[in-house]
């Protein structure tokens, strides 16, 4: 059973605000989705843990330096920046 508290808790973990007026609707929707997901509960499975899809292993890069990007490029898309840093103003 999905509760309002569940939704509030996962909203915090997801860094999302859920408006008080949407909480009931969302809880109901999530309950419906979770019930739908519950279909798997009784599904037979081998219990074997799934690896990655193509069973790949040991894909590595060598420890060789590649030139970094100029900081102007790195900061290009930043909503706010100052002194070559990404900037988060404490409040607006």
């Amino acid at each position, binding site marked *: 059973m999905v509760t309002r508290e569940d939704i509030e808790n996962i909203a915090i*973990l997801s*860094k999302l605000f859920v408006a008080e007026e949407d909480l009931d609707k969302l809880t109901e929707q999530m309950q419906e989705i979770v019930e739908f997901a519950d279909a798997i509960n009784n*599904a037979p499975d081998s219990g074997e843990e799934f690896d990655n899809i193509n069973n790949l292993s040991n894909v590595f890069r060598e420890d060789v330096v590649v030139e970094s990007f100029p900081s102007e490029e790195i900061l290009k898309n930043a909503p706010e920046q100052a002194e070559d840093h990404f900037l988060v103003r404490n409040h607006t």
Partner: protein
Amino acid sequence: MSIIKKIHDMLSSKEISCKELTEQYLSEIDKSNGELNAYVNITPEVALEQAQKVDEKLAKGEEIGMLEGVPMTLKDNMSTKGIETTCCSKILTGYKPIYNATVWDNLESKGAVLLGKTNMDEFAMGSSCETSYFGGATNPFNTKHCAGGSSGGGASAVSGNIAAYALGSDTGGSIRQPASFCGIVGLKPTYGAVSRYGLIAYASSLDQIGPITKTVEDASIVFDAISDYDPKDSTSQGRQKGLTYDTINNDIKGMKIGIAREYLEGIRDDVKEALLNATKVYESLGAEIVYFDMPAIKYALPVYYIIACAEASSNLGRYDGIRYGFKAEHYNGTHDMMCRTRSEGFGEEVKRRILLGTYVLSAGYYDAYYKKAQNLRGTILKAFNDAFLNCDFILAPTVPMTAFEMGHAVSDPVETYLTDICTVPVNIAGLPAVSIPCGFNAKGMPIGMQLIGNKFEEAKILNAANMYEKVAKENFKDTKWGVKL
């Protein structure tokens, strides 16, 4: 006939210059995009600059490659350096990547002419393209209907002849379903065949880039071009076998086509009828139809939503207003800024999936949902492996229905999820599948079917699809829109 080959011949024979061709496409986009809403970002400068290069090459008498000068489009979740890439989400508005996705690097170096970026469900989460921040793309067969999703824009553009081909991405059917709705061809390659580097992730273990084209031959040409091993993607393997194009006209006599009964449950009668007609076509081509049961795929849909949403909840955590994209205007403190940015920047469906994904991964629920779903993923994979012991490929409907009317899909989330029932098993098992048109319903809307192959067996399914296309031309109908070559 292959659109790409036709354009290639026209350019090579100088029947038309690349500039003229590109301008024709751009002007048709101008005329029709208002109604189709296929493009969310049109890039005439990029296209014309590339066209000029091609013309210069031709003027010097040099030969051009098959994809050189061919006008095409990318789904808006593929990173294009300097060109806005938004995933059709408010949260990425204004974001101009500083690097190229490997597929675009690859095609750009082959001289592809990029007309623009196409519409999609926000972060590829949806089945009608309507969760797009820019509104949904419409269906060229009837614009009251949606183009499907999530790669609806690409499918609409190709079906509407305002791009010779498009690249889409398929996480749970996002290439095949809109291709089916729009009466065209969509190939979802084997997981690992095409690099994901630069594809903005929805669900990393399921996402795969593939072509959306008018003909099977086109799909083969584009797939061969983009299926390279990429050292930047740890899960990349590239095409494991030769060019699919080389075997596309092979005789399919004696091929065994499997039909899993579970795929025929709960699908509309007209869709079922079209599929059964297709089996007759195949029989006439000398193939053998074998029916079998595959109970494991019954669990595919919940398994898909659990895994996809879990991965998405993690992949989408990074949109926090600090490094790129949208940032909330008013806030109090960093934590508040992040929450407001995300709450204002993401649409409802995306938030719903993030919440579901967080839920199934959170303490106390992980074992019951995520872990169980992962185990079942192995079970489904094994069921497919077993099936391929007895058949060359599996034939199944792509979608249980035809394109819904605009506005229909958004009302009930679970009902909408059910439309993915035939497409998701392929993603769960990492298999290749191509959707091709196989008929029309009473209202003239296209019906599609998919050919599902074993891992890295793209050549086989494209071969079989192409042979079908040759004898079932009437199902590959053109629309009134766009460029007429």
